[in-house]
Every structure is written in C-alpha cells, then in structure tokens.
C-alpha cells in the first residue's frame, strides 16, 4: 500500500507563497490586501492540512482558496465603499513593479480594471499557465463559461491596451 503523503506546512508556505501572493495581488490590485489574503489562505491551509492528499492537491487547493478569498476581500472592500484602484498607485504600487517592463506594468494595471470573473481566469491562465479545463476546476465553473470569460477578458484587455497603450503596442 502506498504511504500517505505527509504535508509539511512550512515547506508548503515556502513553495507557494509567491504564487498565492501574486494571485491575490493581481485579483485584488492591492499589495496590502494581497498580503492579508495570503496570510488568511495559509492559516486556512493550516486548519485543513489533514484533508490535503498530495502536492498537486495542495497547489490547486491554494489556487482555489486564494481566488475565493480575494473575491471576498474585494466584496468586503466594496461594501465599505473604498475605491480600490485609486488606492493602488498611491499606497502599494511601487517596489515589485520596478522589475517589470513599463508595458508589463501598464498591462497589469489594465487587467485590474476587468470584471472579476474575467480577471480571475486571465490571471490563472497567464500567471499560472493553466489550461481552461484546469481553470474550470479551480473556479468551479463550467468549461464553456471559463472559455467565454477568457475570450471576452482577452478581447476587452486588447481593446483597452489599444486605447491606452498606443505608444507601446505599435510594434506588436
């Protein structure tokens, strides 16, 4: 009989903190909020360690919970009436963006203006390199809905980029 996988919490945090944090940041658009979400996600993982079956399960569990927690955090913010996207640049914008190209930074900013469902699938697709089938499993939605959101999201992002980033995409 195969031996049951024994997850090590600290090791899981080490391995996935970058993924969880990036996913949360791109979903919420707020570095501070993303840190809070990432922290909550890992604490939730700690409470569910006995249900995690293997490394693959841990990765997908973290992706799903991060997307859900980020959506919840955004909803709570909206209820409180905070205008997120005004805050981003002012409070939490800078440090990590320095590593990116100007186009990358701007694309990321435009991504944050997309509807939540489209943003989620685009982040999972391009950050996590997931197939539509895998995304459907994470966001718990039909494959057709995921493909539709990918298509619409990418189309909308392209349109926004064409309008706002003319100087950068001339050559693309």
């Amino acid at each position, binding site marked *: 009989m195969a031996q049951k996988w024994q997850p090590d*919490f*600290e090791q899981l*945090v*080490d391995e996935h*903190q*970058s*993924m*969880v*944090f*990036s996913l949360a*940041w*791109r979903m919420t658009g707020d570095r501070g909020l993303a*840190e809070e979400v*990432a*922290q909550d996600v*890992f*604490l939730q993982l*700690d409470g569910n360690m006995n249900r995690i079956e293997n490394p693959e399960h841990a990765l997908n569990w973290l992706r799903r919970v991060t997307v859900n927690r980020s959506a919840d955090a955004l909803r709570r913010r909206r209820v409180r009436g905070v205008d997120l996207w005004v805050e981003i640049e002012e409070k939490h914008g800078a440090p*990590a963006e320095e590593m*990116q*190209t100007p*186009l*990358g*930074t701007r*694309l*990321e900013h435009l*991504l944050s203006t997309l509807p939540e469902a489209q943003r989620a699938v*685009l*982040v999972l697709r*391009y*950050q996590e*390199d997931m*197939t*539509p089938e895998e995304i459907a499993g994470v966001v718990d939605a039909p494959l*057709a809905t995921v*493909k*539709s959101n*990918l*298509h619409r999201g*990418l189309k909308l*992002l*392209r349109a926004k*980029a064409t309008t706002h980033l003319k100087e950068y*995409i001339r050559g*693309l």
Partner: protein
Amino acid sequence: MDFEWPDQPEQIDEFEKELKQAMERRPAPPSLKRRVMQQRSTRRTERHHTSMMWWQRLAASLLVGAVIAGGFGWRQIEDRRKGEEAKQQVLTALRVTNQVLKNMNRKLAEHDRAESSK
C-alpha cells in the same frame, strides 16, 4: 457559446506573450512567511487555551453536578432515616399504650374478682 481556445504555444500571439511576461509570479514579501508562522503559533496557543478552558468548564460542571446529586441523595437518606425514627417512636408509643391497657385490664379483672367474692 463555445470558443476555440489555443492550447499550443505557437498559437499564442505577441500580445499574449507580453501579457504572460507581465504576469510572472512576484516574490512574496519576506515578512509574509514570518507573519504566517507567528499567527499559526498564536492560533495554536489560543486553541490550546480554549480547549483547556472547555475541559476545565466541563470538570467544574461535573463537580457541581456531583455535589448537587450528592446533596439530593444525602437529603433522601436523611428523610428516610427520620421517617424510620418517627416510625420507631410511634411503635414504642403503641407498645407503651398496649402495656398500660393490659395493666388496666388486669387491675379491673382483679377488682371484679374481689367484688364477686364479697
């Protein structure tokens, strides 16, 4: 509505390549892991305290329950003992009365005999 979605890398256009590049994972802040581990340890301690508190409450409740049950039991035994005592007293009183009546009966009988022999 079903959309064709490219799964092959060669089908991804320049815009998507740029998007993919823009969406590389970012390093988590160095403080994140430390805070997670700290919170985890705090929560575990709290959970331990909470469970200890529940055990203490349970033990206290059991003790109070045992005291109440013991008091109730003791009172029943005491009531039974007092009832038994009262019963014995009544029986003694009846025995005394019985004895007195017997004596009186005997005296009356002697008196009657003395009257008839006169």
